[in-house]
């Protein structure tokens, strides 16, 4: 266990440093912060000064949030395994005394913590509003942030899986983005059909609703938390197995 944590934290730190050493991370951060900040002003205006509603937009009620959530993680994770495999770095990592699981989890944690940083611009908006004299519903703000991180975690896990399945970063990013778009527009399918069983099946895997129904309004429901944890774990497990499968090829 101790060995696992040691490898995990070493890889987490390295990957996070690796993310920030490239220009991509800074570009993404600037885009996200500028866009979210601009849109926050728009949300404030359309909600006619309802601060909580405007903050909720920033954390998941708007299309902009889902676009960022679906596009950013694949860009972060696309190179993590596929490129390392191509450069032979995987051979280096997988002959170091760390388990495959800690390699995958370390990379996953790095991507997710970057996304957590991206979403914290929303926290900044809440602080600003507070400074301006209107107290926001902090429970909902933190809930929204936690939900946003969980959603990104899930998308980082799928992104990592795609990266583990191919040797080309672009293919990994493309695959993950397509998957994420499917996930995001899945609820729209519900409205297209009358069949109850399809609607129910979609409701069970509806990431948007799981985020909006609880976290966004400041409720930490263990069932909904479990939904994200289980799905994320499932994709991470698949990524680990596929990393392992590389040895057999």
């Amino acid at each position, binding site marked *: 266990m101790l060995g696992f944590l040691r490898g995990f934290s070493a890889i987490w730190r390295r990957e996070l440093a*690796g993310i920030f050493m490239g220009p991509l991370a800074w570009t993404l951060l600037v885009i996200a912060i500028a866009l979210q900040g601009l849109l926050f002003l728009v949300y404030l205006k359309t909600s006619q000064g309802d601060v909580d509603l405007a903050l909720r937009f920033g954390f998941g009620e708007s299309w902009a949030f889902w676009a960022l959530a679906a596009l950013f993680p694949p860009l972060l994770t696309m190179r993590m395994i596929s490129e390392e495999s191509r450069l*032979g770095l995987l*051979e280096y990592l997988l002959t170091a*005394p760390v388990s495959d699981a800690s390699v995958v989890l370390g990379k996953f944690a790095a991507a997710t913590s970057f996304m957590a940083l991206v979403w914290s611009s929303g926290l900044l908006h809440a602080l600003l509003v507070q400074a301006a004299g209107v107290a926001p519903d902090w429970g909902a703000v933190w809930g929204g942030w936690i939900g946003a991180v969980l959603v990104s975690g899930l998308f980082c896990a799928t992104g990592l899986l795609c990266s583990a399945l191919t040797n080309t970063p672009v293919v990994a990013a493309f695959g993950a983005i397509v998957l994420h778009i499917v996930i995001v527009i899945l609820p729209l399918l519900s409205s297209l059909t009358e069949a109850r069983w399809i609607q129910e099946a979609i409701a069970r895997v509806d990431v948007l609703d799981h985020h909006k129904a609880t976290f966004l309004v400041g409720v930490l429901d263990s069932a909904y938390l479990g939904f994200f944890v289980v799905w994320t774990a499932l994709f991470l497990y698949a990524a680990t197995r596929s990393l392992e499968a590389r040895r057999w090829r």
Partner: protein
Amino acid sequence: MISVQSLTRVYGSHKALDAVSFEIQKGEVVGFLGPNGAGKTTTLRILAGYLPPSSGTARVAGFDVVRDSIEVRKRIGYLPEAVPLYRELRVEEMLRFHARLHGMERERTRRRIGEVLEQVQLADRSSQLVGNLSRGLRQRAGLAVALLPEPEVLILDEPTSGLDPIQRLEVRALLTELARRHTVIVSSHILPEIEAVCPRVIIVAKGRIAADGTRDALVRQLGGASHVRLEAVVGPDVAKAKALLASIAGVSQVVDGGRVGIHHGFDLVCDSDLREDAGALAAARGWALRELSWRTPSLEQIFARIALSDGIGEASGGTGGSIGGAPRTDAATSPAVALAGARLEFELRATPATAAAPAAAPAAISGAAQAKPKVVYNLNPFDGGARRDLGKPKAIDGGSAERKEP
């Protein structure tokens, strides 16, 4: 320290390793030698815990590479051929990352980083980005990474590939120094590297171990006969000179190397260096000497022979034939001769009747045809093939019987 038993690894339908077994004791320095694609890298990757074997077992320091992979990885320093390092890190950061993966304490990390950088002579480059290092420097940085946790076993895959001659010398010197403290396995397809550094050599070919032993033992075991080369003016009676040379104690055979200008060449096949005796004889007879040299087959010749032949049996068997038949040219380095020798060996085993046949090569060809009982189209004008009934396969027994009968 390392024990490998009938290790087999299959990639799809290709058998990269075929039941390889060997043992390496603590403190040994072993060179893995083989042509490209022989299975060197696969073996090393299995030992490093990167690839699982398809069957067979490998143990490092008593730990199974599959079941106790992590324990094995703690004890090895592995430098893959591509020298994978994070290009965006500085040399020192790369080392610190590696130390963290190995769970080294801070104090020890700092001490070891200083030591290994000194050892590979990179101390002045410690704050340079790995991606900006030249190939040779990166190789050394990779070595530093492998050395950092003071591993019991060092596994280096082609540590000198892509280096210029001077860098190669430096790496070689470094390896010699490392050999004093670690069990080292080095792979290479460049023979002088291995010969210079490793007392023990394992030659791999086509996924099998073709030879294993110290350099001298290999030469003795597989190299065949060594000989004294003598070129001198021996006068008109060559046969007498040959007989005289053959009478030297220890000479098992004298091969007439033919006339070279006014000189005549002989090869005295013998186990020990008989230059003095041959020289004394020449002086006594008044022969004007042009060359008197002691020639032993080099590891390089053996390596070439193994690389070119199909396997171990043929390689060692072909030796006798080619040395005896054509000692003038380096039998091993000329592929045609080595292969012919190998085929001859095969034929000798298959059809003992042809053992005495002097024309070995044509016999071998028609012998191969014998296995297929179909029409043989022989275009050799000296073979009498045109007069032969092409409807019947030509039996070599018939040919040699004709020669024997009269």
